[in-house]
């Protein structure tokens, strides 16, 4: 090799292969980029799925256990392979769970309906042109949610006792309504705020009286929000334990109370327990899965969408 050509081959970028990328080189670069993107997505996928399964595992294990028999559940090393059976579920349903389900369902549905009925007009009024009072009212609603129930339980218990309203599902309904109202007001308000003002003006120009504007224009737009709010109120009402355990005894006891009674009275029967827990938690888990997207809004008082 002559000195000149050696120097030429050492100079960066000045290889004898053309510095212009040929079609082949371009294609390989493109493949690298795509591969990198895919690896990224695959890595994240693996990590994501792993974490998801890890977090979900206790629930999964509970459901699996519920399909075992006690003998299969009560083993030192968990049995992975087994023939599923519904025997524990039937035991649960024969152990008198239905009144609890009925109470929970009744308290949940009725309190949610009342909450919607009260919160929707309230939220609507609060979503109109803001007045100083608006902020004060909103502030008040949040503050009630933040105060510990434990500070109010004693008077509530004593009042209920004196009014002979203990162990009464309607007492629960009243309490659950008060519990969920702040969330509902804030959530509904955030949905109302999303209705464009122009829409209301158009309806007014079209001659719609307030009632029809509300029913034909506003409610259809806000309907998904209403549904989401309802689902979230149902979730909190169904899962509520502290008030239920203190205010109810036998007649008005709800599902959470059922679970508790289940342990202490029956000792530790794993499979049946798992079945009972699955039955108790299933409705809300489904509701939560459906209302997933709105969950954040409910939890953050509508501050985050």
């Amino acid at each position: 090799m002559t000195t000149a050509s050696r120097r030429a081959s050492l100079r960066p970028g000045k290889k004898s292969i053309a510095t212009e990328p040929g079609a082949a080189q371009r294609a390989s670069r493109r493949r690298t980029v795509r591969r990198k993107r895919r690896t990224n997505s695959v890595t994240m996928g693996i990590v994501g799925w792993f974490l998801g399964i890890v977090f979900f595992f206790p629930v999964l294990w509970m459901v699996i256990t519920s399909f075992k028999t006690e003998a299969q559940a009560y083993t030192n090393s968990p049995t992975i392979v087994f023939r599923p059976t519904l025997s524990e579920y039937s035991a649960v349903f024969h152990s008198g769970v239905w009144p609890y389900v009925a109470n929970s369902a009744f308290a949940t549905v009725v309190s949610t309906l009342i909450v919607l009925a009260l919160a929707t007009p309230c939220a609507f009024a609060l979503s109109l042109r803001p007045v100083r009072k608006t902020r004060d009212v909103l502030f008040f609603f949040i503050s009630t949610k933040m105060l510990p129930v434990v500070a109010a339980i004693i008077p509530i218990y004593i009042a209920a006792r004196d009014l002979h309203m203990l162990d009464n599902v309607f007492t629960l309904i009243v309490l659950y309504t008060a519990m969920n109202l702040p969330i509902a007001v804030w959530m509904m308000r955030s949905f109302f705020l999303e209705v464009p003002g122009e829409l209301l003006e158009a309806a007014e120009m079209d001659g719609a009286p307030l009632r029809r504007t509300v029913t034909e224009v506003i409610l259809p737009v806000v309907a998904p929000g209403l549904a989401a709010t309802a689902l979230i109120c149902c979730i909190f009402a169904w899962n509520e334990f502290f008030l239920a355990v203190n205010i109810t005894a036998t007649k008005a006891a709800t599902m959470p109370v059922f679970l508790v009674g289940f342990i202490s009275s029956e000792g530790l029967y794993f499979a049946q327990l798992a079945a009972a827990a699955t039955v108790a938690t299933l409705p809300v888990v489904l509701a939560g899965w459906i209302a997933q997207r709105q969950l954040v809004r409910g939890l953050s008082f509508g501050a985050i969408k």
Partner: protein
Amino acid sequence: MTAIAPPVASAHRRVRTRSEQRRQSWVRRAPLLPALLFTIIVTQLPFLVTLYYSVESWSLVRPGSRHFVGFSNYVQVFTDSQFRTTALNTIIMTVGSVLIAMLIGVGLALVLDHKFIGRGVVRTLLITPFLIMPVGAALLWKTTMFDPTFGFVNFILRPFGIGHFDWISSFPLGSVMIEMIWQWTPFMMLLVLAGLQSQPRDILEAAATDGARPPAIFRELTLPHLRRYIELGIVLGAIYVVNDFDAVYMMTHGGPGISSANLPFYIYQRAFLGFQVGQAAAMGVVVVVATIIIATFALRLIFTSFSGTEEAA
């Protein structure tokens, strides 16, 4: 055109009549009232009554023993070593659970922010712990996970030489905290995820063009943006966790002794198991005052940082 006197001074100014104004404001207020009144009656009245009870000594098992004792209940509360222990437990539980849950939540949110196959399913799986009835979740952990003989945790750790370990008796506070973290991580994750997804993409692209590598982008742009979501999550989470009664009740019943009791549980014990209404009421008031302090932060965050309506990009 000559300058015209401002219309306000003009005699022809069409001001709404007093009665019109009053009617308008009524129309605006009326829809509010049912919800407002209901909430005031059901939430504020009991609290006022609690205040009243807290200055009495009253045991439910001895009717007729009610009498006014001024602040002596409060003095007893603050000199009660058990109260101090449970208060400490509450703080440990709350701070520990909230911070760890937030840490994990941020990690999960970061993973979920990337596109991959089945992302929606994974997200659904990850929020499930939050949806499980708290007593159900506590039950779950107590039995199928932590049980000394049959629990899954011991099964996993058997190859490492640990088996038959009674987690709940040995680490009562820790066990309860693990359960709380499991339940509350999804909440933190959702908040942070909302924050990540609300970040405008073009800002990130601009940073990439400016030569920033992903760690730098995260540190300089994403983290500051996430700050208010993280703050909100921590404060809201703290408020909810401080009041968490179900987990303690189901998993340990406060025990052994009161080593895992938190304030809500302790107050419950005093009121419904010890029937000491006055003392329980005083403790309740103290808890409320403490919560108000944290709540003020939360409210300020919600009202200013997020302004309750639209956020700027």
